Each structure stands twice: as structure tokens, then as C-alpha cells.
């Protein structure tokens, strides 16, 4: 039985002090995305890459949920599955109260304006043969019946919003720097006034000096339009900066979910602890003092995850039970949940 991530209990929700939190915008329940592996003489399906294996969480309107984890743990897959860019294997996804988990692609089209995506690689996510205005205008072409002039005006407006010079409208992506390209991508995502944007590592490909520009822009836009973000990143420090709540993923599962303060100050799951301790500190004095938890080995393959707890192969605090039983999810503090056997003694299993 996969751990079903509990829905935050009402009182827990009330405890979240963020005034923005009012309504659940995105509700993900037991989401699974398995990619089949075919092999053998007849190309029979012999197994699957369990890229995402039973994930549940909520995103409140106006907040930013950070999603962190190592490469290949399934972060992008979650983001894409929520937007139904994949046909999901199991589970439900509700956006703005509408179930889209299994809606056919053709009907999804009408939903597209509410949910948008910003991609990791600003170079790769822009068609090199389309001009900036065409790229930003594409969603408008698809979903609105604006006249040419209206569209032009809207595109200009969007370019202003993301801080792109209007004069660049007729240029092509390769004529821009990385940060500018990412702005184009953001402008495209904003074109239809979405409520919810999945940012899939929007800054990973950018230079340090540019990253901050883009993050600030995202924050400004959120403040201005009341946007909701799912901010996927492996950069824990940037997530700490931008996210309100943070989910930590390991091999297709969420191992810990908590508010930013809780997570960074008192990480509970051994993986989260290791992950945080591994982040180097740009300060030689602190660096010297950090007690690092060095994990051994690598992330196992999602096609063949270990039995029991996914993390048991690398966990410094591994117990016998971890190798046999999957840990359920425990709410160890209001709004702070983790899936680890360490907490089974002290905490009651949360409702599932």
C-alpha cells in the first residue's frame, strides 16, 4: 500500500500563519506516473520506471510550493503530470476544483489557460525559428480571438511586465542572453493570465548573477497577479528563498513536506537532513563547522526501487524495518509531515 499523503487537517491548515493561504488551488492525490519498459522477444511490457509513485499534496492559492530532490527523482515528471502533459497512470489532479487527472487531451484545451509552465532550459524551450512576439503570442493565437492589433498590444504589455525591451519583439531567441530568454518564457506563460504556474527548474541553466534577476521577477509577478507556483528546483538555497512550503522528493515519493521554516530549521527525514547538510555554505567559517552527513552510493533506479523504504539503501539511520516495510506518512508537527519509520514510535500515523 503506498502511503497516501494525508490532507492537512483543518487545524493544521489554520496554523499556517500565511494570510495568503485561503483556498486549495491544486489538489494532487496519490499521483502515479509509471513509464512502461518493454523488452523481450515480443516487446512485452516487463516493468516500469516508477518515476512518480504515489504523491499527494495541496497547493494553496497564492503560495509557492517548492519541490526539491536529486536529479532523476521525478520532480519534472510531477510538474508535467500535474499539467497533464503526460497521461497519468493513477491518481487525481484537481485544479481550481476541476478534476483533470483523466480528462482527454482535447477537453483539456479549455483548461490550459489557467495552468502554465516555465521550463528549465530557456534556450531549449523557445522555438529558435519563431520571433519573440510570435512565441509570446502563440497562446493568444490558440485561445483567444484577438485581432492582430490587440494581440500586438497584449504582447507588448507582457514584454513590459517581464522587463523586456519592446524593441526586441521581432528578434529571435538566439539573439538573447539566458536571462532574457527566460523572461520570454515567463511572458509566454503569463499570456493567458493563468492562476497556476509550474516552474520546472527555471533558473538551473542560468548563471549565478542572472538567477537572482529571474527569481525576483517571479516574485514580483506573483505579488502583482496573485499567482500560484509549483517551484521545482534542486537548488535548496533558492527554494528556501522563494517557497512558502517545501516538499522533498526521493525516488518518486515525497519524503517530507513542511513549511519553509520548519523544513530548513528542523528537517526530520534523514534524507532531508543529509540533503541540507550537503549544501555548501559560501562562508569559510561556517563551512568548517558544518557537520556533514555524507550519503554513500547513488540514487537507485526508479525502474527497480528497493523494497521497503526507498531511502533504505543510503540512509545513515537505517533500521531493519526500513528494508521490509514502506514507511507511512506521519504528521510530526502541524503542517509538517514525513514518511520515515523513525517517527513511528513518537507519533501517530496520520489519517490515510
Amino acid at each position, binding site marked *: 500500500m503506498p502511503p497516501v499523503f494525508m490532507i492537512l487537517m483543518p487545524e493544521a491548515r489554520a496554523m499556517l500563519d500565511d494570510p495568503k493561504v485561503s483556498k486549495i488551488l491544486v489538489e494532487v492525490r496519490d499521483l502515479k506516473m509509471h513509464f512502461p519498459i518493454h523488452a523481450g522477444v515480443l516487446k512485452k511490457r516487463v516493468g516500469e520506471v516508477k518515476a512518480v509513485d504515489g504523491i499527494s499534496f495541496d497547493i494553496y492559492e497564492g503560495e509557492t510550493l517548492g519541490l526539491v530532490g536529486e536529479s532523476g527523482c521525478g520532480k519534472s515528471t510531477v510538474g508535467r503530470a500535474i499539467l497533464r*502533459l503526460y497521461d497519468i497512470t493513477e491518481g487525481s489532479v484537481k485544479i481550481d476544483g476541476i478534476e483533470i487527472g483523466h480528462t482527454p487531451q482535447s477537453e483539456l484545451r479549455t483548461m*490550459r489557460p489557467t495552468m502554465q509552465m516555465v521550463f528549465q532550459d530557456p534556450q531549449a524551450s523557445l522555438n529558435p525559428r*519563431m520571433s519573440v512576439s510570435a512565441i509570446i503570442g*502563440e497562446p493568444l493565437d490558440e485561445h483567444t480571438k484577438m485581432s492582430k492589433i490587440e494581440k500586438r498590444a497584449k504582447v507588448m504589455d507582457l514584454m513590459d511586465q517581464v522587463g523586456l525591451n519592446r524593441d526586441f519583439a521581432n528578434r529571435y531567441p538566439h*539573439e538573447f542572453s539566458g536571462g532574457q530568454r527566460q523572461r520570454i*518564457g515567463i511572458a509566454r506563460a503569463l499570456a493567458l493570465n493563468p492562476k497556476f504556474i509550474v516552474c520546472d527548474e527555471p533558473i538551473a541553466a542560468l548563471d549565478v548573477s542572472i538567477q537572482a534577476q529571474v527569481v525576483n521577477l517571479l516574485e514580483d509577478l506573483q505579488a502583482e497577479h496573485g499567482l500560484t507556483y509549483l517551484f521545482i528546483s534542486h537548488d535548496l538555497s533558492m527554494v528556501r528563498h522563494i517557497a512558502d512550503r517545501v516538499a522533498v522528493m526521493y525516488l518518486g515519493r515525497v519524503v517530507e513536506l513542511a513549511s519553509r521554516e520548519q523544513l530548513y530549521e528542523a528537517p526530520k527525514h534523514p534524507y532531508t537532513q543529509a540533503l541540507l547538510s550537503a549544501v555548501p555554505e559560501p562562508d569559510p567559517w561556517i563551512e568548517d563547522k558544518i557537520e556533514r552527513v555524507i550519503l554513500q552510493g547513488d540514487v537507485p533506479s526508479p525502474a527497480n526501487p528497493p523494497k521497503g523504504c526507498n531511502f533504505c539503501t543510503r540512509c545513515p539511520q537505517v533500521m531493519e524495518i526500513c528494508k521490509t516495510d514502506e514507511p507511512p506518512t506521519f504528521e510530526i508537527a502541524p503542517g509538517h509531515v514525513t514518511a520515515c519509520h523513525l517517527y513511528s514510535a513518537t507519533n501517530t500515523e496520520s489519517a490515510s
Partner: protein
Amino acid sequence: MTDATAQTQAARPPRNQWWDVWDQFKTHKGAMAGLIFFIFIIAAVYLGPYLWKIDPTYIDIRARNKGPSLAHPFGADQLGRDILARMLKGGQTSISVGLTAMGLSLVLGTFVGVLAGYWKRLDGLLMRFTDLFLALPLLPLLLVIIMLFRDPLRAMFGLETGIFVLIVFVIGITSWMQTARIVRGDVLALKEREYVLAARSIGTPSRRVVLRHILPNIMSPIMVSATLGIANAIITESALSFLGLGFPPDFPTWGRLLFDAKDMIQQYPERVIWPGLAISLTVLAVNYIGDGLRDALDPRIRGR
């Protein structure tokens, strides 16, 4: 915010990316020479007949087997037909065959390649289909198609057009597979590109994704296939002539002229040299153009 790079770019006039391609292309000497020659050949065979007004089928018995002279700069053939006029007319056919057959094979190859690459469900089927064509021995196939359809087409389009359509069809239909494979491979890769994903996240329907995002970005392999395709078609046409399967003997094409003259290589070497040169140089030119295009369309190289 100020953008240093952006400002320097603002100084440059806005330009279509084809200009970059052209700039890069210009630096390839072979390609430029090829292009100039190819344009020259095209102009010669299509405009030439307006200047050189001798009818290529007119028989001037007194001029039989005459060497080059003022009246017949390239000489006259065994019936006294003007070889220059026949070269021009033959070039028209050969080049038209090259261009249209290439076009056909390109359209087919791209179509199949895109379908197979983009729609996973069609992939297996279409690729088997492509393999099938690859495994079909071309020569008998060519032969049978020519025999089967020569006359219905002739009836439909008239003598010359009929056989032209047929040859073009035959060459096109037997040479699209490489293009299809390359295109499919590229589409498979492009499909995973984030901008395609981005388009899908916007809700762009597949058809438009293909037209707007996929097709323009596989231009480079397509263009290269195109140039190779022209060369290939011109050569195939001449080989067909050699095997007696191409255009009828009284219908000049470069391949046919070369074939007819090859027995007289000792008596009238110039009759072999002209069409031989024309074919080789055209193919060479087109190949160089292809090489240049490949470089020019490759952003990795163009960026350098």
C-alpha cells in the same frame, strides 16, 4: 534593467535568420561556386532555348555528324540535330526531373517521417513500411512501375508529360526512405524538446505543433536531403536511360544523350563530353551546395 548585450544588438538591424544562413553559406567557397554554377545551368537550360532557337528535334540531314561549327556550336548528331539545342532541352528535362523527383521524395519522406516520429502509435507501422520499401529491390520495382503505368499516364498527360510524371514518380517513390528515417529521428528528438512541450502546455493541437514547431526545425536535414536528392535523381534518370527504362530514345535528356553517345566515344568524343560534363558538374555543384547548406544550417557551426 539594462542589458548590455541587448543594447549592442539593438544597433544591428533586425534580420531574418535566413540571412545568417546566407552569411554562413557565403563563406563556403565550394558551395558558392556550386550555387553560381547551378544557377547558371538552370538559367541556361530554361532561358537558353529562347536565345538558341534551333528546334532540338529538327533534322538537318546535311549536318549529320558534323563537328562543332558556327551553326552548330556543339556539333550535330547522327540525324543532324543540333546538339546544343538538345543539350538545353535535355538539361531542362534532367533538371526538372531532378527538382521534382527530389520534391516528391522529400514530401513523402518528410510526411512519413513526421507522422512516425510524432505519433508513437503510427511509428511501428510506418517504420515497418519504410523498411519494406528499403528491402524492396528497387530495379525490378522501377521496371514494373514503368511498364505498368507508362501508358495510362501517357494517355492522361500526353507523351512527354506522361513519361516525365512517371519517371519523377518512380524516382521519388523509391528514394524517400532515407529522408523519412532521418526526419523521424530528428522529430523524435525534437518532440522531447522543451519548446514542443511548451506548445503542448499552451494547448496547441498536434497538427499545429508539427507545422509550427517541428517542421521548421527539421529544415536542415531536409535541405541536405533535398540537395542530395537532386543529384541522386539526375543520376538515377541517366542510369534508367542506360538500362533502357527511362525516357524514350527520341526524347533528349542528359542521361540519354550520354548513353546514346557512349558508343561513339572514339569517333565523336565531344558528344560524350558535353552531357557527361553537364551531369557531373551539376551533381557536383548540387553536392557542394548541400555541403554548404549543411554547414550553414547547423547552428553549432553557424555560431562559431
